[in-house]
């Protein structure tokens, strides 16, 4: 009798814990598998190996291997420089990777320029505290248009080259799984991160923290009457910027309590300010899908230069030169439009390359 009652009580207690507290629920883990029979299966070790690619700050997950600065420079110029610049300094496609750190930062572990509000922008090397992050970033997500295609040696080498550009390792350095922990001790902003804030909901970072889990740092009060000073506008968009986001009248519904403001300067004569994109390059319509599929538009605008020239500029310069353009699309090049290199495009199919070259050359038979 007594034991039955005790069991019931325990059952009730467990039920309450389960209902109100997920941690308690987690303790019932063993039963979950039985409850959901036939669902999911064990992963094979090869499967885990294929996908478990992350590298942590303690270098767990880092595959053995090495790569030299010299090798890194070769890989960089072939596969990375077109977006990031030869020295990792380019601001044309992504924020600059290198710059803003000093030999003194390598000693202190703080990128001193982060304290200067006047310093323009922040490079990756100024921010990143952990060298594992660079390795993991390059390994999982680079090159941008062909991620996960670098060999382990290439990832080490490119990481070494970046570290060399940042003054962290010398020209003759070879980075490896054996010495990467020493490199960590020279990262210019290795002491630049803090977890002492209230924007993480758990207690995991709270060891001796001034701010506990989830505790806000900004504390306002809800005054209701005669609050604060008389309002003064200190910032508004200048009139010349009113059309920067297109015609706002075309971005609001046509019925309701209000309309969008006309910002295209036509005083209502046209609602079409937004639709003139995609100007003609050659004579046929732009093969937009092909350009997007092959990531051409990452570097070329329809009209304007991004990294490389705009399609309209190319079309103007090479009318009828389909074969020349076909060669350039496939083999890449540099020097015609500036020093920025266009990498070879081995991934593009013949049909796609033909169609794009034909379109640029103004070939009337070219099909979009």
């Amino acid at each position, binding site marked *: 009798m007594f034991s039955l009652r005790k069991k019931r009580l325990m059952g009730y207690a467990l039920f309450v814990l389960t209902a109100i507290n*997920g941690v308690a629920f987690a303790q019932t883990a063993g039963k979950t598998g039985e409850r959901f029979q036939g669902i999911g299966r064990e992963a094979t070790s090869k499967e885990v190996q294929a996908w478990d690619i992350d590298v942590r700050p303690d270098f767990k997950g880092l595959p053995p291997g090495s790569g030299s600065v010299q090798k890194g420079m070769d890989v960089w110029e072939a596969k990375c420089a077109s977006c990031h610049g030869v020295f990792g300094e380019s601001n044309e496609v992504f924020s600059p990777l290198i710059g803003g750190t000093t030999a003194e930062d390598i000693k202190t572990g703080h990128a001193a320029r982060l304290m200067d509000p006047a310093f323009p922008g922040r490079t990756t090397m100024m921010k990143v505290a952990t060298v594992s992050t660079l390795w993991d970033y390059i390994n999982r997500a680079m090159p941008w248009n062909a991620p996960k295609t670098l060999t382990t040696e290439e990832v080490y080498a490119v990481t070494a080259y970046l570290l060399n550009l940042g003054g962290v390792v010398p020209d003759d350095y070879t980075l490896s799984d054996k010495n990467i922990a020493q490199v960590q001790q020279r990262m210019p902003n290795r002491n630049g991160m803090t977890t002492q804030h209230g924007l993480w909901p758990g207690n995991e970072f709270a060891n001796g923290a001034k701010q506990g*889990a989830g505790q806000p740092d*900004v504390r306002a009060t809800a005054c209701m009457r005669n609050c604060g000073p008389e309002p003064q506008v200190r910032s508004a968009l200048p009139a010349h910027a009113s059309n920067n986001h297109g015609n706002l009248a075309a971005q609001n519904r046509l019925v309701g309590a209000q309309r969008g403001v006309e910002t295209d300067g036509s005083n209502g004569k046209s609602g079409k300010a937004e639709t003139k994109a995609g100007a003609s390059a050659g004579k046929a319509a732009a093969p937009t899908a092909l350009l997007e599929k092959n990531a051409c538009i990452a570097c070329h605008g329809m009209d304007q230069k991004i990294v490389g020239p705009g399609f309209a500029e190319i079309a103007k310069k090479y009318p009828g030169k389909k074969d020349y353009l076909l060669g350039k699309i496939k083999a890449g090049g540099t020097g015609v439009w500036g020093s920025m290199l266009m990498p070879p495009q081995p991934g593009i199919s013949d049909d796609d390359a033909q169609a794009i070259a034909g379109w640029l050359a103004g070939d009337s038979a070219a099909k979009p």
Partner: protein
Amino acid sequence: MRSQLMGRVRKAPENFVPPQAVGTVFAEAKAGRRDFIRSAFAAAAGTVVASVHAQQASVGDGDPNILELPAHSKGLGQPVVTDGYGKPSKYEANVQRRQSPGLTQTKQASVSFAPLQSLFGIVTPSGLHFERHHQGWWDIDPSKHRLMVNGLVKSAKVFTMDDIMRLPSVSRFHFIECGANTGMEWGNVAVPTVQYTHGMLSCSEFTGVPLITLLEMAGADLKKGKFILAEGADGSSMTRTIPVELITSGEVLVAYGQNGEMLRPEQGYPLRLVVPGVQGVSWVKYLRRIEVGDMPYATKDEAVHYVDLMPDGQHRQYTSIQECKSVVTTPSGGQMLLDKGFYNITGLAWSGRGKVKRVDVSVDGGRNWRTARLEGPVMEKCLTRFNIDWAWNGEECIIQSRAMDETGYVQPTYQQLRAVRGTRSIYHNNAIQSWAVHANGEVANVQLA
């Protein structure tokens, strides 16, 4: 009596009246020149070729939209299933998600903003949900998609979509906000409308399986395993360290459903993580792997990006919670009020720490506040719609909203926020938004001293 007449007349024919003309019309209206008003609006409407559906200014014998029966009242309409997966009315073509020109240099690592100024209630239509891609989006074959659970587990597991969709599901409404939402406005006004100031915000009903279920099935060691890594299957293979607190509470979902349909490809079809109250970057799309570990991972998007620079030069790392915030969506920047008189000021409020408790609205730049009506249901870590009556007297004014959540946290002013965080942190800007209404009815984005 005159003011009543004005109220009937001032309804503008279209959105084609330039600001100066509206001002003139108001001025003339005050002087009682109704004939002038009629012709001013007629002229404005006349400039529009095939005006979509002009609302008549003058009544006369009556509204021709009433007196002359339209084709749709006298003809046969379209058959069923003209469109097997229906689309909005063609008259809604202005309601689009949009890029902010110049914000990003590529279209694959970019953002599109949801048109908050045109949305009702709390649910974002799935096709208007804001987008943030780091290396382009994909439409992945769900029959080939897999989710792996490994790390500090008894046995690493693989689940197919069939497996996951066989498990007991839950459906919950939550907001998702990019940590960088309103990030362009830290220093000064940078963009014109609420779409661009606050449009990296959406809200959906998500359907899926609590992540804790899958971790238990794998026998996860959650005593040692204090940190979870979530990883995506796309080129960027987005990885983020996920707060275990929200997993053991059962809040974090492995979701496949969104607003009654499957996730849209731009939102991670067929599987994404839902991390309520936490910034969008942690809601990993195309979710392929969950790893249980004993330390945080310092991934690219928590060690190079999504770190908040403080005035002392330190970066805050693993900032996750989206703090209590609100914004008036109508009237809002870039809009034009066409008449004095009654308006329903409406907007959205949300908190990553729980439910919204109260929203106050000011129409005098924050000097005096009135408490708005909250439209139910008010849910945890979900958008809440607020409304409040307002009669515009035609004078310049500044509209603001200020939310408070159930923890007692009050949304700060820009001054209060900057006093602690400076102006360079990019992320987690939850300051009170100000919209200035000019005498001509034009609404503009402003920041106050």
